[in-house]
């Protein structure tokens, strides 16, 4: 029998913020999305206040003031570093691990069942080590399939089953499991989104138990093979394997909305150049080359009363490349073609497409400079990784970067930037 664990960090972004900032202890903390738009993470104190996920910050500003809620901008460098540390701690617990998202990992524990005390004790050890070593709280769900492990994790988090943040379905009696599934809404099942949930409700399927016991064939014909697979997984039949190696990205997108509307072409060019620098760095990190570049720009579609314009154009490149200079030159050429004066632009983005591994590439006879460009880009990436992003950059990215997104209350790079290290008082 296969066994999986899903380990999920509690309130991950908010917990990372609290970890280094003692003044945030016991205070309600929210983390806001890009441009400080919406609530994307809530501390336990905020959840207790009943503030929902995804709500626009401006809508809850009055509540926030009344309750003393602290709003932080998203500090992705910090979250990514802490996430990597969590994965590293977990990789000592299983040789097979799938990093499912920034705060969730699946571990394969097949054959680990004979450990003293059983898998729940093993899960408790993971939880304890992450608390000790990283100061972060996690919940652990353990079950014979990934879908059930997700559900067990939900039970651990909501205290529906298991204890102390760990829930192991494997030793439970089938009747106990059935009783438990009776009490859980079908919408909590992995892969059952809002749309499917509504259609299931119309069929009279409201609980996890009803879904598990529904006719798989009927569900396949009404929905898809995916829903059928979910049903089989709920029955304990493992259908979804661990995905240990994330496949190389076939497209790399870098886009943002701006802090304020941009009218000037030069500002737009700086933004596009800077997004391209980021996208190209990702491209090189997976050791690939791009064969095509897309640029798009658009006005604020949420303000239909203002003049609207949007345009996206893709150009194929004569030689696949990962050279920021070449990619940026093409992106700017495209931008100049699609830019129209008289509009207030709200968002721009670049996409690298037609991506292939660098090693499968044959340099064309007339592109013999490529190996030297590779070497240059390695140096640029090395410096940026060591000393902080944007140290060597193309002049096209601009210096002032007025278009940059608003991150009004950004915590320092506590673990990723020498200048951001948290100071301790010797007083």
């Amino acid at each position, binding site marked *: 029998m296969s066994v999986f664990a899903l380990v999920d960090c509690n309130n991950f972004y908010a917990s990372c913020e609290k970890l280094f900032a003692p003044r945030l*202890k016991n205070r309600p903390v929210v983390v806001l999305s890009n441009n400080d738009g919406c609530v994307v993470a809530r501390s336990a104190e905020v959840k207790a206040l009943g503030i929902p996920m995804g709500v626009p910050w401006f809508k809850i500003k009055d509540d926030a003031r009344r309750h003393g809620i602290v709003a932080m901008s998203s500090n992705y460098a910090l979250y990514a570093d802490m996430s990597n540390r969590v994965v590293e701690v977990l990789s000592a617990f299983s040789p097979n691990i799938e990093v499912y998202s920034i705060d969730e990992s699946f571990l394969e524990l097949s054959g680990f069942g004979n450990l003293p005390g059983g898998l729940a004790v093993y899960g408790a050890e993971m939880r304890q080590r992450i608390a000790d070593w990283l*100061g972060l709280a996690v919940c652990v769900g353990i079950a014979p399939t990934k879908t059930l492990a997700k559900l067990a994790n939900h039970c651990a988090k909501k205290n529906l089953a298991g204890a102390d943040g760990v829930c192991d379905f494997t030793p439970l009696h089938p009747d106990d499991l059935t009783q438990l599934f009776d009490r859980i809404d079908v919408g909590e099942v992995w892969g059952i989104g809002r749309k499917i949930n509504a259609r299931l409700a119309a069929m009279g399927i409201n609980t996890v138990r009803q879904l598990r016991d529904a006719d798989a064939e009927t569900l396949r014909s009404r929905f898809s093979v995916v829903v059928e697979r979910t049903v089989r997984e709920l029955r304990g039949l493992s259908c979804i394997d661990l995905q240990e190696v994330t496949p190389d990205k076939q497209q790399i997108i870098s886009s943002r909305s701006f802090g304020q509307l941009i009218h000037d072409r030069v500002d737009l060019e700086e933004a596009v150049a800077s997004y391209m620098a980021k996208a190209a760095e990702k491209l090189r990190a997976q050791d690939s080359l791009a064969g095509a570049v897309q640029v798009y720009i658009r006005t604020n579609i949420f303000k239909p009363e203002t003049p609207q314009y949007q345009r996206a154009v893709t150009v194929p490149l004569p030689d696949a490349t990962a050279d920021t200079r070449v990619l940026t030159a093409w992106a700017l050429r495209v931008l100049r073609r699609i830019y129209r004066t008289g509009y207030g632009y709200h968002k721009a983005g670049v996409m690298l497409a037609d991506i292939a591994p660098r090693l499968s590439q044959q340099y064309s006879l007339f592109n013999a400079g490529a190996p030297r460009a590779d070497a240059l880009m390695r140096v640029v990436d090395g410096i940026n990784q060591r000393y902080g992003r944007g140290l060597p950059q193309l002049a096209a990215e601009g210096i002032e970067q007025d278009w940059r997104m608003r991150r009004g209350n950004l915590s320092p790079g506590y673990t990723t930037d020498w200048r951001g290290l948290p100071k301790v008082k010797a007083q």
Partner: protein
Amino acid sequence: MFGHFVPLPDAPRQYLPIDSTKVSAGFPSPAADYVDRSLDINEYLVRNPVSTFFFPVEGDSMEGAEIFDGDILVVDRSIKASHGHIVVAFVNGERLVKRLYHRAGKVALVAENSKYPPLVIHDGNELTVWGVVVGRFKRMV
């Protein structure tokens, strides 16, 4: 039938590298078999990278323990803090570096400088021992 090859005067030029493969000549180094890896200061200071964090010091209260203003502390959370360890602690909303005193049910944070009295932890104080200081470093130039 193609006649002569005549380059256009304004054709774009493509320069080709002539030094992309280095060829070495001569006698191989007699030390080649004895090459050791070079020393890595990370390896010396950081035993457990995943649980190690850095904290710069502000102030003079730990000078008796040779921890000076501007030093960067190496803090390893995988070590369980106990009596006598120098620790980073969060107390009443502040990050502090102190020596941990924990004897007979009494907990205090002690400075290593007579100018600063010990901070005795009562129930009213919020104390979080964040991690154990295992080393320190500083760049001079």
